[in-house]
């Protein structure tokens, strides 16, 4: 990493490697775009303009404005649509991961720490669910509870908790047999104290890495649900929805699927790098060894 270590410094006085700073800036830019973008560039899903159908990027539209990224099949500006979609996709991704990791970590720690019947029940349920295609499960649940923003988050969280639970359980098993946990016990620590002070801090790094990997998958899964008509209602723009909508025009209007696809890829890659470098940094042993 020597060539990457052009560094900036935070208030803490510790130098931050480029591997953290650069992706953090990119992710921050996405969040910023998602928050203020739709305010600057309004998007109305029902405002169609047939004169501007399937215009390529950098075209002047009928109303005189410039369409930076082109327009879709009903003449809606793609950039405005992506900015509005960023808000939904980021929110769905983040909310799903928070929910899934909360459920997964709670169940995984309980299963790993106390073991016994709880462990067997939780982990067998997890195994059964892993043996079942997650998108099929999502389709099943979504079909039952119907499409809405909350339901999509719920459905996706249900399909993702297993990954978090397995990582949390494995890590809990390793940590609870470490000497410093026994040492805490001999100093009178309660189970709650050990979980909060010994187990949970050790979970941060691996869970963070899992979350960054899952982030991309969740956004794509949301797109698949939307594609099947089981995701968000049609009026709500999402990246997945836009990518799906552009599929039928790939031959004559490549930009409809490609632009949100590129945006999604860059975000997923940056989140991945951020997760990896943060893990290395958060582990005090890795820093010195």
């Amino acid at each position, binding site marked *: 990493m020597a060539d990457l270590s052009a560094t900036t410094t935070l208030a803490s006085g510790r130098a931050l490697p480029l591997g953290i700073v650069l992706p953090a800036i990119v992710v921050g830019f996405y969040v910023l775009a998602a928050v203020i973008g739709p305010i600057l560039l309004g998007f109305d899903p029902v405002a169609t303009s047939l004169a501007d159908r399937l215009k390529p990027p950098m075209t002047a539209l009928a109303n005189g404005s410039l369409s930076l990224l082109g327009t879709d099949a009903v003449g809606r500006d793609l950039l405005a649509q992506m900015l509005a979609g960023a808000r939904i996709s980021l929110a769905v991704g983040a909310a799903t991961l928070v929910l899934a990791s909360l459920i997964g970590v709670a169940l995984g720690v309980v299963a790993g720490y106390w073991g016994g019947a709880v462990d067997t029940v939780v982990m067998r349920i997890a195994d059964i669910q892993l043996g079942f295609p997650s998108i099929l499960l999502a389709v099943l649940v979504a079909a039952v509870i119907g499409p809405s923003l909350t339901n999509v988050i719920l459905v996706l969280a249900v399909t993702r908790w297993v990954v978090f639970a397995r990582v949390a359980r494995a890590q809990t098993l390793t940590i609870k047999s470490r000497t*410093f946990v*026994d*040492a805490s*016990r*001999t*100093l*009178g620590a309660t189970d709650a104290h050990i979980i909060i002070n*010994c187990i949970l801090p050790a979970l941060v790094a691996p869970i963070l890495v899992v979350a960054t990997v899952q982030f991309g998958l969740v956004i794509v899964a949301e797109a698949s649900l939307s594609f099947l008509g089981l995701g968000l209602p049609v009026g709500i723009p999402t990246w997945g929805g836009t990518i799906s909508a552009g599929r039928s025009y790939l031959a004559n209007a490549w930009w409809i699927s490609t632009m949100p696809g590129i945006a999604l890829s860059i975000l997923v890659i940056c989140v991945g790098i951020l997760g990896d470098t943060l893990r290395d940094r958060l582990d*005090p*042993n890795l820093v010195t060894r």
Partner: protein
Amino acid sequence: MPPATPSERCLTVSDLAVGFAARGGTILALEDISFHVDAGETLSLLGESGSGKSVSAQAIMALLPDTAVVSSGTVRFDGKDLLALPRRETRRLCGTEMGMVFQDPLTALNPVFTVGDQIAELFRVRQGLGRRAAREAAADVIDTVGIPDARRRLGNYPHQFSGGMRQRLVIAMAIALKPRLLIADEPTTALDVTVQAQIMDLLGRLQREHNMAMLLITHDLGVVADVTDRVAVMYSGRIVETGDVRRVYDRPGHPYTRGLLASVPATAGGGKHQPLATIGGLPPNPQRRPQGCTFHPRCPFAQDICRTERPPMVDLGNGHGATCHFAREMVADDRLFA
């Protein structure tokens, strides 16, 4: 070396037996374990790997793994039977009444918190001290264990300390709440020889200052001789000899103890090079301990009775005892100690 005050019994273990669940039944790790430690006194549990020293400590501190079964015995501390107490109650005694020092200081500290936070937290949670007072107390206690520049080092993480310094920190945490019993499980095994002596000196000093009872678990005969009042020698899950350390070292009543003492390389006395004496054979598989005396297959003095009858603890006077049919003869035989 009797303590100045009338001795106060701190910990009494009687008839302790601990087994581990395994395929094909329970494996007994400890059997017939009885010993006691008085305030201000050091008892060493001496034995090789697998002899059951650490399991004894785990049984006392309620650290036994889930697969362990205590099949009989009592551990009396302060009039209470620790084995009968609910675990929650035992935990309450931990830290304030009894503390433990571990073998490997590199893993005995939580790597994600600064040492100041870890030690201060003890005072906050267990003694209800405020943030600032707890930090002061933490600085005092790590000053006590001889870490230079204590106040500044509170902000360091465990990995920023050397092995010896980390063991001092572990000791600091163990004695922070002034326990009356300190269990030290091979406290110097993972350390350099030069640091070992410093750590043992520290433990000895703290013990005198706080009039603590200390249970020292070790396989190092030299460490035992230096700091111990009494010793209990363990072999294959049983105590084979116990008594005042001088008596046991001068006149061992058990052939195993004799073998151990003979295997210490002689560095004094002219440095005449002699082959190292060893005890032939290996300790028995705990699943198939031999009939009679468990040591008989390795014992140079074994007779027929040793192969059939398990020897009782033979009283050799003044608290010295050995589980050998010929313990009296062993002690009396001057030729063997010429």
